[in-house]
């Protein structure tokens, strides 16, 4: 099946990417194979409905409820599904916990695997060659470019998502947040803190 035909069909479409997409959309629409209204719906879903706020709610709940946290670390898929977070690119979830001695971060060196139901569509940098190439070999230099320097006695564990398992980092709860509501805690949880390239915000 693999063939290395240098006359790839895509070369027949306009080279400029926006026009290339438009041409393909037009052809498929005229043939009744895609519905432009369905495309709008897909875009609206990932632009407005599904995003890091979902993961932040999971993290805040884990910070607040030890039994929930234990269950989440044991079998994240069913636990987050109970909160309504299941679907494409989040069918098999694993949550990994940061501690004072271990920091976790997630990459997909082979493509761009990412937990869509909890974090939405990955940011551009996550899909970049630089992040994919470097996160596994020099995670500390990568983290420094995000402004994050870890203590020398903290080890880094990088999760390369090579399969259909999707990872969410459970960051450490910031100091000075005792008694805060789940909603207030969720506001401190950044997207990057759930990928492992950042930390949660400090309470103001």
């Amino acid at each position, binding site marked *: *099946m*693999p*063939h*290395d035909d240098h006359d*790839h*069909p895509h070369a*027949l*479409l306009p080279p400029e*990417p*926006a026009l*290339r*997409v438009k*041409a*393909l959309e037009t*052809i*498929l629409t005229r*043939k*009744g*194979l*895609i*519905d432009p*209204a369905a495309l*709008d*719906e*897909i*875009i609206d879903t*990932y*632009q407005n409905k599904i995003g*890091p706020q979902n993961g932040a709610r999971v993290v805040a709940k884990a910070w607040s409820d030890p039994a929930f946290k234990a269950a989440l670390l044991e079998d994240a898929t069913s636990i987050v599904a109970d909160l309504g977070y*299941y*679907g*494409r690119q989040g*069918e*098999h979830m*694993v949550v990994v916990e940061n501690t004072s001695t271990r920091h976790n971060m997630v990459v997909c*060196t*082979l493509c761009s695997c990412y937990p869509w139901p909890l974090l939405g569509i990955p*940011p*551009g*940098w996550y899909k*970049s*060659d*630089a992040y*994919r*190439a*470097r996160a*596994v*070999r020099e995670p500390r*230099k990568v983290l420094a*470019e*995000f402004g994050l320097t870890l203590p020398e006695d903290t*080890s880094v*564990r*990088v*999760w*390369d998502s*090579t*399969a259909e398992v999707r990872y969410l980092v459970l960051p450490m709860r910031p100091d000075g947040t005792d008694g805060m509501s789940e909603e207030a805690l969720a506001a401190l949880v*950044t*997207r990057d803190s759930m990928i492992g390239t950042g930390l949660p915000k400090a309470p103001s």
Partner: protein
Amino acid sequence: MTRVHDMGGRFGDGPINPEVEDAPVFAEDWHARALAVTLASGFLGQWNIDVSRHARERLSPKDYARFSYYEKWISGLADLLVERGVLSLDDLRSGGEDGPHPLAERMLKADAVSAALAKGGPADRPSNVAVQFSVGQQVVTTRPAGNRIVDGGHTRLPNYASGARGRILRLHGTHVLPDSNAHGLGEAPEPIYAVVFPASELWTSPEHPDDEVVLDLWQSYLEPA
């Protein structure tokens, strides 16, 4: 050997330029259209996720390197649509004939999008392949990295972790084997594990003696150490 997409550990890509947290989800309108056209086309049911990944990986190294992310998606999609007979070369050249297309009844409609995305497409499957490794056991990954069923085919063992010694961290269950499923050879589900490798096993100059990399690896990628 693997292909151009397999870039873990590569030198020379320069700095990462993180965008701010609240940057738009799609930097350009056409990025959003590219994602949506690709997803909607997938619902025509003519390929699976492993086939679509492999279509992007099979872009020539020159194209892969010069295309931006969503250009890879849309170009891989165009190639796949022709390869699977959904569109003809003439369709791409000139727009071809208007419908009706034999697959038109499978078109994803707007009112079905929400349920279709929520349903997902799990790779977990029952398997008759016995679990060979236990948590804590030392294993070695196959070397060289590559598809052992189809030469040049799809695989998910990155080159940088080929022939490396690691330890079973977690059994994820049994999942569809991409090396088979990407080539229409069946789902061939088998046990899959999270395997942890010391950074010193993978890199000549690891940053820190205690750092580790974890990969999700199918049983057939592994041998007892």
